């Protein structure tokens, strides 16, 4: 296989995965106005739990220290990853979502990100510490027995299936009465509460569902790469997804696809060829981080609604059973 095809396949796979990440974040922020500044931690929890669900039992030796090791076949690890991320979201949401001000959840998420990162690194028996998990089996490849290059095609198909399902679900939710309540909460929590909506509960649902997207995306990532460690979920990773959402269009799932294409591809791939100086091995990474930060600020400044802004909902009114004359007898519409 030519290296160009290989490269394009990799890009396509990450494009699918970033779209999935993005839809979850978009549900949280774009639709509901929830600030999750450590979205990548939910990705990581999904990845780790999916990883240890798919791996053989750990041998307890070097590189083999991890929990579970259930050796489960493919569609199950992503489900476990999604559930794990959802449980973390429940805990975090319980602490952070009850407060009225959005800063509090943001503070809680920043803190949770730090803590989870430190704990996963330091407590080796969980997920093999700073070295992380490796050798996670590729989905279905025990059946196909393909080499990595050809296996790419299989994995792309898997990712596309997940992305299509994920898009279908998120679109339905966005354009349902549920999505409407979330947007009402985003605009004004008090109004939503005054209309009888349990704001905490709805925010929690949005937070959890969004985190499931993160977890499943993480599960796909570890299934693809086969490995995962704490350097895979740094703060910068969260903000690549944020930038993708803001650039593509927050509140618009199609815009999110666009953003998932533009930002990660452009930034990860575009800055890959920056020179790495011997004195500063992380110069390219640093410049990438600066660029993402700058992009966030500029997007917020000049086009906070994104390239594809949230679409206006227009109801079709033909064929309605209407209540007759204005000011007629029936004042309270039935």
């Amino acid at each position, binding site marked *: 296989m030519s290296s160009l095809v290989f490269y394009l396949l990799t890009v396509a796979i990450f494009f699918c995965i970033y779209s999935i990440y993005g839809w979850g974040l978009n549900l949280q922020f774009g639709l509901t106005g929830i600030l999750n500044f450590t979205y990548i931690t939910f990705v990581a929890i999904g990845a780790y739990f999916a990883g240890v669900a798919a791996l053989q039992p750990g041998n307890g030796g070097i590189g083999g220290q991890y929990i579970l090791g259930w050796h489960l076949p493919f569609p199950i690890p992503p489900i476990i990853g999604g559930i794990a991320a959802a449980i973390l979201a429940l805990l975090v949401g319980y602490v952070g979502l009850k407060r009225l001000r959005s800063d509090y959840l943001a503070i809680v998420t920043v803190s949770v990100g730090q803590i989870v990162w430190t704990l996963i690194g330091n407590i080796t028996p969980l997920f093999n510490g700073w070295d992380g998990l490796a050798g996670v089996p590729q989905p279905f490849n025990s059946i196909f027995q393909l080499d990595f290059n050809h296996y790419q095609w299989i994995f792309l198909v898997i990712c596309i299936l997940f992305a299509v399902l994920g898009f279908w*679900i998120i679109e339905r939710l966005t354009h349902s*009465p*549920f999505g409407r309540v979330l*947007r*009402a909460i985003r605009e004004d929590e*008090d109004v939503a*509460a005054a209309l009888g909506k349990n704001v905490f509960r709805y925010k929690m649902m949005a937070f959890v*569902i969004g985190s499931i997207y993160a977890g499943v995306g993480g599960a796909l990532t570890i299934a693809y790469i086969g490995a995962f460690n704490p350097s895979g979920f740094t703060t910068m990773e969260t903000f690549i997804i944020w930038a993708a959402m803001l650039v593509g269009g927050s509140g618009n799932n199609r815009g999110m696809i666009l953003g998932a294409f533009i930002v990660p591809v452009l930034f990860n791939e575009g800055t890959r060829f920056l020179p790495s100086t011997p004195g500063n091995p992380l110069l390219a990474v640093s410049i990438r981080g600066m660029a993402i930060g700058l992009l966030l600020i500029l997007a917020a400044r000049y086009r906070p609604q994104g390239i594809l802004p949230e679409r206006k909902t227009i*109801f079709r009114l033909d064929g309605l059973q*209407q209540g007759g004359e204005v000011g007629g007898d029936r004042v309270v519409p039935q």
Partner: protein
Amino acid sequence: MAIVSFPSSILKVTNLAKSFGGVKAINDVSFIVREGTVTGLIGPNGAGKSSVVNAISGFTQVDRGVVELAGHDITNQAPHRIAARGLIRSFQIARELQKLTVLENMMVAPFQQLGESPWRALISRRAVMREEREHLAAAVDWLQMFNLFPLRDEYAGNLSGGQKKLLELARALMAKPKVVLLDEPMAGVNPTLTKTLQGYISRLRDQGVTFLLIEHNLSVVEAICDHVVVLAEGAVLAEGQMNELRETEEVISAYLGG
């Protein structure tokens, strides 16, 4: 003040008190609102009218006192619980959901919509759509009634001040409330429409909806309120029918002096 509990009182406020720092915004307020009436709540600026509405609807936690709705103690309950019991409020400064269209603002209002459950939204698409059509029909009726129908697909944030007040009122009514608390619903609404609104409120009252109405225009109050509570400096100054209160010296001095 002793309060006689009428069997027909749907909202009862007893010895309510709330301070903000040193300011006693509500200072031992008691009154009842009887079912199927329009009760006016009047008083000079800063008298505590909005604070009373906030306290009843659960938006401020009171220091003391009891609020009962249809016999249930709702004191300091969460706003959404109180709303779910059928008490809907409007806000003094209109709070439209800006990036929702006028029609969507209306569609948020109905209680316990099937499609508000994410699960149902996914799997019971047809039933959800059916319910949406029903709500849509009601919403269109209300919007036509309030002359907002031509603006239905406009973002609510783009409406004029008066239109926002109308939308706020229409949205409250869309929720099919038993009791409606309206905080100056006619401020900024043109005189013709004010007249029309008065007509609707009276008619809704005749259909059994109860109103607590904060209003500055005393002739409006006189025209539609069955009973009026006068607040001043956080306390009930007087109570009765508007035409009687007009004669009361205290009320006159509170308004002119205050």
